[in-house]
């Protein structure tokens, strides 16, 4: 009896399952084309999908190897033409979709059905790597329900009896019910399961895709004006105490201290990994940032934020450098949140800076821009080398002369600084900061360019700032001994509105509404809708997507106090067990398993009477039992009593409570009468 050969030969894929598998297949694959899959894969997928439907309708046959070979070959050719090689991160997901589609054509048995289900789950995961929007997540919830329905449908359908009508619908209904039951445990696990750091380093993504991510490793004229076209979100900031005004919102990302005549870059000295000296003074402004992934290491910090361990947030993933910058140790591949304290009026490196750094910040290319050099020399003479006076003079020059702040600055030639200062006088923040730094350095004052963001869209009641890519900015810092790096923003001299009110304020209402699309009433409505959607999206990002190590640590500490890895793991296992038993109880409802009392008494009676006559079984009525000749006569009066009480309970309109008691009493007496041992 234990040597069963499994009789379950490969059964054919049942129709219900195939229906839902096809739906799930389409639901999983189609959004991928929008998210990351190149469009030339679409015909390939379409061929496989339609073919399988035709097989389903028994119009086509399963493809034989020539067609499959053609499909695979065409896919290979497509990949080669698009990428030039096969070893590519993108090719991974293309191969996955290809496998999924090819398997669909080949699917015949239930085993194939399972493979398709697993491939669908893998594709959903891949999809989430590229897109995490709340709508996409909700959509995938529906897709998961369909996949679960397909799993349900894999039960062999060739059977007798109570086959539910409309089996296809039942599959989906059952799947939904099961998923709803699974939600509580999932939520608990999501909260409690420890978030480990990545197990291995990922190969770095393409470095070339700069325009998408915003700021870049270098600054050349024209960079920032390109960025100004992008309404994309760079990050959100929540202020936990006081909300600074827009003109005080300088978000530092990178510093550039090396100029080659046209482009500013960061030298290796900038990455000196000692903590900058930040002399705290004045008020403290605590804030929390939720930033979009940049695939880079920089992190936005409000001047000036020392990197200290905050009791709320785990900061071991960050490091700070001597230039006052904060970076993430691993590239920011996913949305992250972090909390810092800013001291806006603190001093940055007020006492001595290492000489190498001072020298670096005065370096200029040996040739070029003679007029600017001359001017700098004149300024030094005029103000006796006083850094602050010289800075003020340059700044005033920008303000008093006819300089313009424009999104479409003219291109500059070889002596870009001279051309800008004396000829074009039209530029964006990068021109002004670059020129300022040049002149200051020429005057012998250590000056550098700081890039990051300035301002943002302030939501006053919620104390929240939304910073977009178009808020990217470049400004300057010059160093004075005793006072440290002093911030100066030459753009403010030319376009004060840009600083006070943001780029949109500076451009004037007409240009601004044009940029935002609010110049029509439909645009206004759309903007309002987008604003609400933005708030929802923000909440989604902060609570769910941003739930990584540091936020989890803070949240759980709030609930349980200090937790270590071990404790967390124990909590996870404990909650799984607790929920398992809870679910079991809710599903099995053991409190409802008990039959009504009179039935239980009857069963007990049968069980006892079997000792006298093994033929007695539950199909006999109480009257038959009472009249049975197989039972000793001394039982008879009690059996009749039992019978009367039982009938009363079962057949009367209103069973009397006394009947149950009588039933119990009779049963007790009967049970005491045991058969004689023969």
């Amino acid at each position, binding site marked *: 009896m234990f040597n*069963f050969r499994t009789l379950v030969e490969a059964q054919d894929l049942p129709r219900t399952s195939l229906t839902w598998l096809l739906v799930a297949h389409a639901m999983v694959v189609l959004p991928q084309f929008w998210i990351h899959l190149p469009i030339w894969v679409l015909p390939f997928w379409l061929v496989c999908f339609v073919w399988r439907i035709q097989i389903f309708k028994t119009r086509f046959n399963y493809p034989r190897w020539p067609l499959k070979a053609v499909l695979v070959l065409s896919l290979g050719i497509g990949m080669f033409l698009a990428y030039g090689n096969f070893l590519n991160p993108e090719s991974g997901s293309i191969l996955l979709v290809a496998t999924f589609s090819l398997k669909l054509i080949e699917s015949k048995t239930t085993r194939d059905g399972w493979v398709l289900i697993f491939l669908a789950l*893998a594709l959903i995961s891949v999809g989430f790597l590229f897109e995490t929007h709340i709508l996409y997540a909700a959509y995938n919830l529906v897709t998961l329900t369909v996949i679960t329905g397909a799993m349900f449908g894999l039960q062999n359908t060739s059977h007798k009896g109570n086959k539910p009508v409309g089996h296809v619908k039942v599959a989906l209904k059952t799947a939904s019910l099961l998923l709803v039951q699974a*939600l509580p445990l999932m939520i608990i696990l999501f909260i409690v399961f420890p978030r480990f750091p990545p197990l291995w380093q990922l190969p770095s993504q393409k470095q070339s895709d700069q325009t998408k991510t915003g700021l870049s490793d270098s600054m050349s004229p024209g960079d920032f004006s390109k960025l100004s076209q992008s309404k994309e979100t760079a990050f959100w900031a929540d202020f936990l105490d006081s909300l600074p005004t827009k003109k005080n919102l300088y978000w530092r990302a990178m510093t550039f201290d090396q100029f080659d005549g046209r482009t500013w870059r960061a030298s290796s000295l900038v990455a000196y990994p000692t903590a900058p000296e930040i002399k705290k003074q004045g008020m403290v402004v605590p804030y929390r940032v939720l930033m979009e992934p940049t695939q880079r290491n920089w992190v936005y910090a409000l001047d000036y934020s020392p990197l200290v361990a905050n009791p709320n947030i785990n900061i071991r993933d960050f490091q700070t450098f001597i230039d006052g910058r904060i970076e993430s140790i691993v590239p920011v591949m*996913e949305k992250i949140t972090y909390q810092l304290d800013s001291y806006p009026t603190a001093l940055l490196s007020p006492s001595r800076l290492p000489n190498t750094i001072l020298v670096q910040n005065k370096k200029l290319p040996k040739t070029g821009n003679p007029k600017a050099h001359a001017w700098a020399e004149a300024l030094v003479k005029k103000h006796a080398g006083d850094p602050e006076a010289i800075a003020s003079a340059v700044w005033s020059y920008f303000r008093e002369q006819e300089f313009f702040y424009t999104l479409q600055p003219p291109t500059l030639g070889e002596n870009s600084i001279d051309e800008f200062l004396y000829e074009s006088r039209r530029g964006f923040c990068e021109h002004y900061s670059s020129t300022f730094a040049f002149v200051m350095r020429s005057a012998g004052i250590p000056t550098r360019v700081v890039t990051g963001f300035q301002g943002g869209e302030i939501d006053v009641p919620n104390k929240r700032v939304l910073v977009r890519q178009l808020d990217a900015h470049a400004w300057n810092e010059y160093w004075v001994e005793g006072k440290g790096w002093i911030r100066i923003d030459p753009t403010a001299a030319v376009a004060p509105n840009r600083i006070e009110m943001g780029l949109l304020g500076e451009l004037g209402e007409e240009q601004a509404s044009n940029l935002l699309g609010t110049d029509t009433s439909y645009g206004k409505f759309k903007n309002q809708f987008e604003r609400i959607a933005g708030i929802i999206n923000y909440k989604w990002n902060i609570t769910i997507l941003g739930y990584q190590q540091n936020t989890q640590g803070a949240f759980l500490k709030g609930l349980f106090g200090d937790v270590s890895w071990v404790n967390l793991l124990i909590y996870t296992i404990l909650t799984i067990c607790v929920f398992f038993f809870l679910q079991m109880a809710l599903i099995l409802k053991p409190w409802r398993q008990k039959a009504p009392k009179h039935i239980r008494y009857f069963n007990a009676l049968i069980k006892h009477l079997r000792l006298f006559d093994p033929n007695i*079984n539950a199909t006999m009525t109480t009257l038959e039992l009472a009249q049975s000749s197989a039972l000793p006569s001394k039982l008879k009066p009690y059996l009749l009593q039992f019978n009367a009480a039982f009938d009363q309970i079962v057949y009367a309109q209103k069973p009397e409570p006394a009947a149950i008691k009588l039933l119990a009493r009779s049963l007790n007496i009967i049970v005491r009468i045991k058969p004689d041992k023969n």
Partner: protein
Amino acid sequence: MSYQDFSDVNHPKPKLSKWIEKRIPKAASLRLQQHQVFILPSLAGLAFLMMLGGMLVAAINFQNSLIYAVTFLLFSLFVINIIQTWRNLAGIHVTASGVKPIFLGEHAHFNLMIEGHKKAHHYIRVITEYSSDQGSSGVLSPTGLTLICESEARGYLHLPRFKIESRYPLGLAVAWSYIDLDQKTLVYPYPIENKWLDKYQDNDVESDNEVIFSTKAGVDDFTGLKPYAMGDGVNRIAWKALSKGQGLLTKHFNAQSGIDTWLNLNHFEGSIEYRLSCMCYWVLQFHEAQRTYGLDLGNLTIQPSAGDAHKNAALQALALYGTSYV
């Protein structure tokens, strides 16, 4: 050919089967209780868990909250499914609903019913080495399933302990149990056509209790009508009387006076099995011709008679000859 009781052949692991016997005793009708239902993840379920492991690694490595969410949702779905699969099988009532005797070489159809008293049971499968069947039952609405057994020897054919399992709803876990419904059926010897009768017909020998069987038709005398009794041949009913409103009456004829047809084991030649098969053939012939006949098997004698009950007794005697059940 062995005469042995069929169930003796199927106990390769005595200890385990004793444990099962004790836990789930034989019964013609039983209800699977909690301690009698076993559950484990199926092969698909294990593959599913491995898949989830891979997704978890991806979630950890890419620090992606949504992949974590999907992994956890599917894991809890797996946990819920285990409970539901177990619940689908536990509490099911299985009752044997009859089996007909067969001739050697045929297949026995053991019928059983599954029923749920408090809930429906879906996609229940019963499996033996040789056959399987699947069905669903509603609340208090039973479904019939059939298990087929081959017959290898004559005698009693027992329905072995079979496996009852379910993978509802998602196929990620299997709940199963082993049930023995204590059902057996008779396997009669396979009737082999033979010319025994002709041999004896040509002999005019008349000895005590020997047979002279005349094939001449129409010799019998009509003795009258009697009320129909169970077992009387349908072709003997007086239909005309019935149509006149006189009720079911059977025409009775005198059996050939003084001559009883006896089937004696010793009057046949060949191996025991062959002889039994030949006798079986004649039992069937005589029964169809409504003749009386008797059976002499040495240790067992059945007095001459006719009718269905007599035929069944005769076939049973033939089936069980030489076994321990005689």
